[in-house]
């Protein structure tokens, strides 16, 4: 998938993945790759600016686990869930409209 196209939707995708289960950065990038059948194969370090930005915007929260291997675990906040719901609705209506045009046009 073209980097620029993906970049525009990365916030929504990362929120959706973290919304499914509280995760650390490594798990987020793994899940993105799995769920997209390998289409979203980003340099792994690029997920962290997204996670930090979403946290700064109050859409995610995070904490270090105190297990043997310390991991920074991200969780979607209530504001993040609302934002994700809005993004899903916008995306559904946008993708329906694009598909409709592409189907109808010769």
């Amino acid at each position: 998938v073209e980097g620029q196209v993906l970049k525009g939707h990365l916030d929504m995708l990362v929120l959706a993945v973290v919304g499914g289960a509280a995760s650390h950065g490594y798990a987020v990038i793994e899940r993105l790759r799995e769920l997209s059948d390998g289409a979203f194969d980003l340099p792994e370090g690029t997920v962290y600016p997204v996670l930090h930005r979403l946290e700064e915007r109050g859409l995610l929260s995070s904490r270090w686990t105190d297990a043997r291997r310390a991991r920074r675990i991200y969780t979607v906040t209530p504001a993040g869930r609302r934002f994700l719901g809005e993004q899903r609705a916008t995306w559904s209506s946008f993708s329906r409209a694009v598909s409709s045009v592409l189907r109808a046009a010769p």
Partner: protein
Amino acid sequence: MSRAIETFLREYRQELARRRVLSFLGRRRVIAEARQHLAERAEALAREGHPAAVAERLAIRRFGAPDQLARGWLAAEDPIGADAVSAWLLLTPLGLTAGVALMLVLGDLVGALVGMMLVVPLAGLVVGGGLGAGQWLSVRGKLTRPLRWIAATAGGVSLGLTAASWAVEGLGFVKGNRLHEGAALAIIGAATGLAVAALQQLVARRLPAGALAWVGRMALGMGAGAALVAVSLSGAPGSFRTPAGLLLLALAAGATAAALTAPVLRRAG
């Protein structure tokens, strides 16, 4: 942790610092997360059958090049636009003045509750809370989270005000003429600005773009603004101690500090 991963992390940290990405504390967290990620990826690759050294090299390659990653951090920031800078110019003096006004209202109560020794530090927290809230509102979310910013600002005002007030009173500066008062307020303002800016740049994601300039300009702005008011107020020495004088002082110190720090903020955006 392997030497290859530590070398990569050192390069990554240097690249973030060179491009002035994130605060010192922010960079520490990013590197800690990267270290954990690389170790986990290298272990996964080793489980797939790669020799340890190869697994680490592959993990590093998959993580991304330090310069590319640093550019990604810069691109992830919301821009600080002209509207935010204008709001900064307005809300910094208003926030500081609101903090002083609140302290004027609460002053007697605070004195009765905590005793005279703690009045200045506590007053600093209240005044700094107003300043921090005003500043955060102007650039919401673009520097750091609200509580972190407001706490750093309040702590800075409290620390700077307390240290400088004790020093100035110890020197007997305040009891002199208006020039002495001007000098005393310049010291108090500059020390407060210095402490505020030093703590703010520790928690802000983007001020490393001009950390020294930030501290210097905040100190100069607060010191100059406070001194100007003390010297120019008509009336007997001590006029600035009246409620109106203190509010004017806060307004002037906030306005000059905002004017001097706005260019650093604009560059950080």
